């Protein structure tokens, strides 16, 4: 027989002035399973708690109901108190007779009746309570960062600086991301390479950071504190342990390939470094274009390499390691504007370029050594049209959202043209100019003062005529069609999530929104956490943003990681789902509704008609389950239940209420 204790709290006069607490205690004493019922003036006080502890010992109570304020207030207090008694802390139910009774009702009779109901309900539930035990899981003090753009680099450095080991996984042969492609950065116009390459070098040389370039994550299992991650190392065909990066191979390689780092504006070799300041500063072979790998002919690099580092037999490799935390920083790509905007020539005009191509053109280490020359003929453009929001804020053709950085880098591009080309003219077509940021509006003002002409309206068509690019559009401020003759057109195109990033995120149990940007746990209050505990995100992987915001978010994610890694152990809530495997039909509904991917379907041996068979049943990962109970409501056979809020407990509450 259960021996329930019921304590009715006066809460000074907060409860007792409306609810007749003595009558409630009297009624509680009559309820089945109740051994002891009493009132207390201030139950949460030390003396109140002492009185409970005494009653537990004296009356050999094995479970407890406290009728008091909301459980959101003192459930933890009372659970903690119970750890010092013979009662398991989870053999406790709280009847909310303050916030949901005495404070909202004035009729004393009715409020007292309701309080009795609420106590009844708590008693009915507590009778079905089971002792539950928290367990602790060790925290593996190591962090994985996926994506080596400025976001990933910053997060890795912050965590490494605090003394924890970090593995930085980047799928390209070098870290750096988009920022190293840029020339100068708004609004201060400091050289992008000058501020990003030192960070890259620092990350490359940091004793706590292990760089894994040409790598991707292929599988993640486990849970917060203990993720087992399989990393796929793509073949590089160059032994990076022995290579010194002398560059002889790259110099002599006879095969020329389109250089994507330069946005297709130049050529590189089939054995190459991504860019001169690449980290690691060692080449890889592009297997798609290397003639030796394709047809077995050439092998020049192998013959020339003084250290014998070339290995055409190199294979992909899989490495599995354990990490306590994961940061996703997979960044962005730009949309394929040529497909979305055939009216802009669809890519057939060499002098209609993207913003990132422009960055390479003005960049001193780019294909033109920083001279702005039209890709078509190398001539210096005198009139340049910049078109903003190409693919942004245009749901009919591409994306509905604003790409956030473009207004500012369009102003930057205008400034750079006006500065570098004497007598040049720049026209900027825009929908709105958005400059929310420190020094941003001032920068925009200055660009206009420098002579950039802003025309409000979208460009409807670009075509070539007499060696000029004609940009037609409406100036919506004067309501007139305009046509600008340009030598070159720069399209400031929309950002979109890096290709494959949603798949990578899904591997780590993180979802993406309808556009593919990774979803944070809460848009305001948990901006760098994800729904999967222990997995964080930062940078443009989460949504379009500029470098200051990216770096701020990266440091925020690092702070979250440090908060986790500083712990030796994590206590897990025992209020999680459990499966009654013999009853499970293996339908998999629970797996589909689980928001944290805590449920998997597994095959278990079983007996059927005296024969050995295997059955598929659901299994809950206790480290992942967050205790929402969605699985339980979806279960057809009722075999999956939520501890602490079991079907039985809730039904007992329903039955107990309002018993006449």
């Amino acid at each position, binding site marked *: 027989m259960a021996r329930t204790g019921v304590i009715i709290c006066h809460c000074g006069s907060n409860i007792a002035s409306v609810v007749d607490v003595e009558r409630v205690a009297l009624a509680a004493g009559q309820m089945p399973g109740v051994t002891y019922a009493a009132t207390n003036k201030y139950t949460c006080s030390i003396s109140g708690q002492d009185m409970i502890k005494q009653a537990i010992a004296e009356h050999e109570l094995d479970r407890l109901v406290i009728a008091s304020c909301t459980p959101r207030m003192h459930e933890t207090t009372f659970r903690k108190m119970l750890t010092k008694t013979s009662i398991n802390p989870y053999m406790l139910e709280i009847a909310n007779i*303050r916030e949901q*009774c005495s404070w*909202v009702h004035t009729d004393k009779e009715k409020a007292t009746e309701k309080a009795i109901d609420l106590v009844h309900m708590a008693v009915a539930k507590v009778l079905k309570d089971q002792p539950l035990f928290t367990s602790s899981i060790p925290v593996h003090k190591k962090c994985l960062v996926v994506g080596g753009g400025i976001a990933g680099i910053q997060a890795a450095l912050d965590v490494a600086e605090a003394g924890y080991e970090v593995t930085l996984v980047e799928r390209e042969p070098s870290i750096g991301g988009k920022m190293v492609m840029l020339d100068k950065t708004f609004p201060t116009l400091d050289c992008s390479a000058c501020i990003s390459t030192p960070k890259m070098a620092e990350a490359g040389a940091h004793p706590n950071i292990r760089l894994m370039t040409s790598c991707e994550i292929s599988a993640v299992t486990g849970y917060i504190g203990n993720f087992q991650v399989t990393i796929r190392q793509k073949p590089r065909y160059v032994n990076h342990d022995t290579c010194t990066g002398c560059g002889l191979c790259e110099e002599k390689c006879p095969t020329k390939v389109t250089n994507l780092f330069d946005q297709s504006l130049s050529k590189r070799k089939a054995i190459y470094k991504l860019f001169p300041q690449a980290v690691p500063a060692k080449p890889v072979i592009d297997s798609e274009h290397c003639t030796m790998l394709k047809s077995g002919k050439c092998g020049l690099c192998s013959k020339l390499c003084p250290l014998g580092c070339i290995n055409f037999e190199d294979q992909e490799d899989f490495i599995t390691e354990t990490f306590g935390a994961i940061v996703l920083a997979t960044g962005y790509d730009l949309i394929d504007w040529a497909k979305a905007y055939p009216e802009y020539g669809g890519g057939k005009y060499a002098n209609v370029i993207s913003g990132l191509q422009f960055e390479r053109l003005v960049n001193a280490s780019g294909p033109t050594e920083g001279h702005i020359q039209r890709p078509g003929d190398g001539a210096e453009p005198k009139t340049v049209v910049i078109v903003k929001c190409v693919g942004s804020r245009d749901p009919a053709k591409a994306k509905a959202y604003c790409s956030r950085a473009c207004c500012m880098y369009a102003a930057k591009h205008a400034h750079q043209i006006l500065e570098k080309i004497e007598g040049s003219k720049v026209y900027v077509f825009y929908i709105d100019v958005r400059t929310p940021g420190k020094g941003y509006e001032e920068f925009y003002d200055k660009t206009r003062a420098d002579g950039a002409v802003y025309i409000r309206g979208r460009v409807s068509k670009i075509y070539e005529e007499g060696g000029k690019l004609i940009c037609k559009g409406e100036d919506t401020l004067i309501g007139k069609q305009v046509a600008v003759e340009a030598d070159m057109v720069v399209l400031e195109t929309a950002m979109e999530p890096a290709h494959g990033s949603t798949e990578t995120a899904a591997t780590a149990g993180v979802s993406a929104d309808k556009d593919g940007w990774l979803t944070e746990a809460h848009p305001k209050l948990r901006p760098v956490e994800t729904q999967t505990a222990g997995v964080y995100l930062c940078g443009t992987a989460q949504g379009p943003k500029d470098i200051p915001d990216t770096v701020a978010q990266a440091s925020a994610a690092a702070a979250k990681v440090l908060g986790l890694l500083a712990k030796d152990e994590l206590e897990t809530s025992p209020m999680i789902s459990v499966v009654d495997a013999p009853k499970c039909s293996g339908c998999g509904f629970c797996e589909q509704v689980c928001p*944290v991917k805590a449920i998997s379907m597994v095959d278990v041996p079983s007996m059927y008609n005296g024969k050995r068979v295997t059955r598929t049943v659901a299994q809950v990962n206790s480290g992942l389950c*967050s205790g929402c*109970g969605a699985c339980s*409501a979806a279960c057809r056979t009722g075999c999956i239940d939520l501890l602490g809020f079991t079907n039985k407990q*809730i039904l007992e509450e329903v*039955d107990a209420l*309002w018993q006449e």
Partner: protein
Amino acid sequence: MARIDAENWEPKILAFCCNWCTYTGADLAGLNRMKYPDNIRIVRVPCSGRVNPQFILRGFQKGYDGVLVCGCHPGDCHYTSGNYFTRRRFLLMKRLLEYAGIETGRFQARWISGAEAAKFRDTVLKVTEEIRALGPNHRMKEADDHE
């Protein structure tokens, strides 16, 4: 008892409230000393998605005149997607009740955040009046529960 005889009949409403939003909103209503009728009894659940259809049927079977399921606003569920399942289940449940001959107004769902104390109070007021207008639930109530 008093509630049962026709003259003094008062509607009985069972509410399943998610711990993160509506339950907190109800607490806030208390904190702000808002007043609402005592016709409602709240069962605290971790998420509106925890509410098994069986709980709702059991409520009607036990003689409740109305059942209310409350959760976070769509998009705000503490567990991301729980209330989307609630919403879908709610529509199915309504059809089932309609089929069983129960006035669909007896079963309602509301999204009330932890900050919307006034909305909680107004919901209780409104739902109580709506259920009162529908009268007692006889159809689904267990026979042996009648006196």
